[in-house]
Structures are given as C-alpha cells and as structure tokens.
C-alpha cells in the first residue's frame, strides 16, 4: 500500500465521520449562550435537524451507537436526566428509518414536511419524559415556540449540511 492509496482511504474514512461530527457540533451549538434575546430563551433544536438530515441521506453513517452517544452528550450538557435525549434521538432514528423511503429522493418540500412531522413527535416525547422524570407537568409553552423556530430554521441548517455532504462525502446513497 503506497501513499497514493492511503490518502484517498483516509479522506474517505474521515468523510464518513462528517455526519456524526456535524451533529455533535450542532448539539453543542444548541447549548451556546446566544446573545439574541429570543434565541437565548428558546433554543432551537439544531441537533435534531442534523440528525434527521443524515438519517435520511446517509443512514449507514449514523449507527444506533452514535445516535445514543450524541443523545448522552446532549443530556450531559443540558443537565437533563441521563438517557432522556438518547431515548428521544433513538425514537427519531427509528421513525425516520421507517419512513425514509417516502422522503429520500423527493423534492425539498417533502423533505421539509417530513421534518415538520418528526420534530413535534420528538418535542412531545421530550416534554413527556421530562415531565415524568421531574414529577410534574411542565409548561410546554417555550418548547412549542422552540419547535416552531426549529421547523422555520430547517432550510438554513439543511443548506449547510448539503454543502458539507457535497464537499466531504458526495451524494453516494440516496
């Protein structure tokens, strides 16, 4: 094996990490103290957008273990009970994998509508689990605003991810 074969292999191997790495960064970005009054109160679920995107386009690069790990990191940083976001993300993965054939390769509005259906399920699951674990019905108001903002911000984040995919991985699998 010479250097000419090692570099493309390495590039491909690193490229395969892009879905997990971008989602990991979005998990952290979602927790940053944003200096915008509205965004600091209701943080949009950037990580959910990234997760949905990659499960639709490259499910092979988003294994269950990675999704679980990303959820655990989100739990740790957000101060949520351990396992809460891990479970929510696994549910999202199962749901999107199940419905993937209706979304992949279709126009963008179908892709967006798919997210607009998945995001409320994730928000509802988070709210139910958080209420259950905290022993009281939590006010869902801010979570609802965050949900609407997440759905509105979806095209912008998806645009970034399209570029990341074209640049580092390529449109191999549809």
């Amino acid at each position, binding site marked *: 094996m010479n250097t000419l074969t090692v570099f493309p292999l390495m590039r491909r191997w690193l490229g395969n990490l892009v879905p997990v790495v971008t989602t990991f*960064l979005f998990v*952290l*970005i*979602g*927790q*940053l*103290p*944003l*200096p*915008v*009054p509205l965004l*600091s*109160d*209701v*943080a949009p679920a950037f990580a959910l957008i990234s997760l949905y995107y990659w499960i639709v386009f490259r499910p092979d690069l988003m*294994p*269950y*273990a990675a*999704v*679980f790990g990303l*959820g*655990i*990191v989100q*739990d*740790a*940083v*957000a*101060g*949520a*009970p*351990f*396992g*809460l976001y*891990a*479970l929510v993300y*696994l549910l999202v993965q*199962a749901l999107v994998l199940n419905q993937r054939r209706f979304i992949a390769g279709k126009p963008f509005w179908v892709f967006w509508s798919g997210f607009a259906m998945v995001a409320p399920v994730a928000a509802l699951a*988070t*709210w139910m*689990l*958080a209420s259950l*674990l*905290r022993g*009281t019905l*939590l*006010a869902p108001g*801010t*979570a609802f605003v*965050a949900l609407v903002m997440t759905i509105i911000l979806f095209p912008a984040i998806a645009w970034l991810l399209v570029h990341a995919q074209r640049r580092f991985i390529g449109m191999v699998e549809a």
Partner: protein
Amino acid sequence: MANRSAKVTVAGLAVPFRVWAQRFAFMGFVALSFALMLLSKAETAGIERMRLAIVDTVSPILFVLSQPVQAVGQAVDGVENFFAVYDQNRQLREENARLVQWVQEARRLGVENATLRAQLEYVPDKRSQFLTARVVADTGGTFFHSLLINAGSRQFIRRGQAVIWQGGLIGRIAEVGQRTSRVLLMTDINSRIPVVVESTGDRAIVRGDNSTRPVLQFLPDNSPISPGDRIVTSGHGGVYPPGLAVGIVAEASDTVITVQPFVDWSILNQAVILDYGVDGILPAPEQVPISPSRSQPATEPNTRVVQ
C-alpha cells in the same frame, strides 16, 4: 432447482442475521437509555461523575464555539451603543450625580457603623470573595434551567455557592467538575430560595417554576405586599448569604405572587461566584498584593477572573 440452490451465498445468508443484530442493538440502546434515566432519577453518584466527565471534556470545544458568537454579540452591542451614546451619556451623568450623593451618605453611614460596632463589640460577617467566570453553555429555557461556567474544582468552586451577575442573584452551584460547573438557575423547578421582603422583613420562599418569573410562597397571610417590593435573600438554610438582591415583586394577586429577577438573562455571558467563609482555601483579601497601578481600596473584596 439445482440452479436456485447455487445462487445461495454467504452474504445472502448473513442478511437476516444482520437485520436481527440491528434490531437487537436498537432495543439494547433503548433499554440502556431507560436504565440510565432510572439511575439518574435516583441521583446515583456514578451518573453524576459520568455527566461531569463529559461536560469537562466538551467544555473546551464549547468555549471555542462560543468565541465567534460572543464576537457577533459584541459587534451588535457596539453598533447599538454607537447610536445610543448621546442618550447614554446624559443618563450616566445624571446617575453619576445621584451616586456621588450616595457615596457621601455611604461614607457617613460607614463611619457611624464603625463607631457603633466598636461600642457593641460586634462580630462582623465573614468577608466574601468573588470569582468571575464565563458562561459556556446556556441550556435554554425549555425544561432544564441551568448554565455551565468555565470554572470548577481547580478554581476552588464548591457546590452550593451563590452565583450573581450585575448585582442580581442567578442561582447556585449544583455540580462541580474539574474545570466546569453547573449553575442551577433560580427559575428552575428545583430551585427554592429563602428570602425576605426588604420593606417588611417578612420571610418567604422564592420557588422556580420554569417560567421567567418565579413564584413567592409561604409569605405570612397578613403581610402587605405590592408590585415593586424588593426581595432579597434571607440567609436562612445556610445556602445563600443574606442580603443578595433576588428581584422585585412583579404581580401580587390573592392567588399568586410572582417575582421579576433583577438579572437580565439575555445578556448573561459571565457570572460571579460568591465565596463565603472559606478562609484558608482562597487567599484572604488582605493577603492579595495590590499593585500600585490598580489602587484598590482596602475594603474591596478579592476578585478573580477566569478567561
């Protein structure tokens, strides 16, 4: 028949096993998530250590990611300040004139206090020390109200210390990692702060309810309270030092009294951790060398900044 059997390959035979393995993995991770949630609910020490280990690991990345965000925020502030500079200058001059009068008053009261204390042989409160840290993560206002700050046990942060910003209480230290700590905000549903109404001295509890305005509870029935009353910590329970500004009464009806915190959450990018009575761990203010260029008054508490 012979042709069909010839098409059977090892890869083909492995497909059902692969599907089963994937399903097993999925169910395994779901079960693991539930198990972790139960352990977390029981507040197991191992879970907290794991959480802190993860937070300590990712906090440098959070810090790096927060730099451009802060830079944008500062740029926006700069533009806003540029246009508001005239009004701000006028307001500051007025405020300065008022404050100069207060300084005279404070000096007079200080002398009077010192004389009276000398007469009574009064034992003074332990002096507080400050540590300023940067907020590296704000978990948003959804279900869990907490912050991560970039100071931990290496900076002698300890659980239970009060955290303030710009004179208003934020919350208290709930978890301490090596270089990162979690601050439980006063708005979180788990937060309870013993307070007094400044004007009447009546005791009460400020309870977080995950909204931006916590609720004032257990106030005596006959206590006269009205919007605008200042609420400060009482010092009972030993968690918060007495006299920290919590907020002002925003709404006072027969059923509910809400408190508007003094702190402005939208500009919260730094926090001050108060340290009370830890002589021997942090250097006492008197032992900190004061450089001639920074002529601090001897009475000013020790302050440090973590960048």
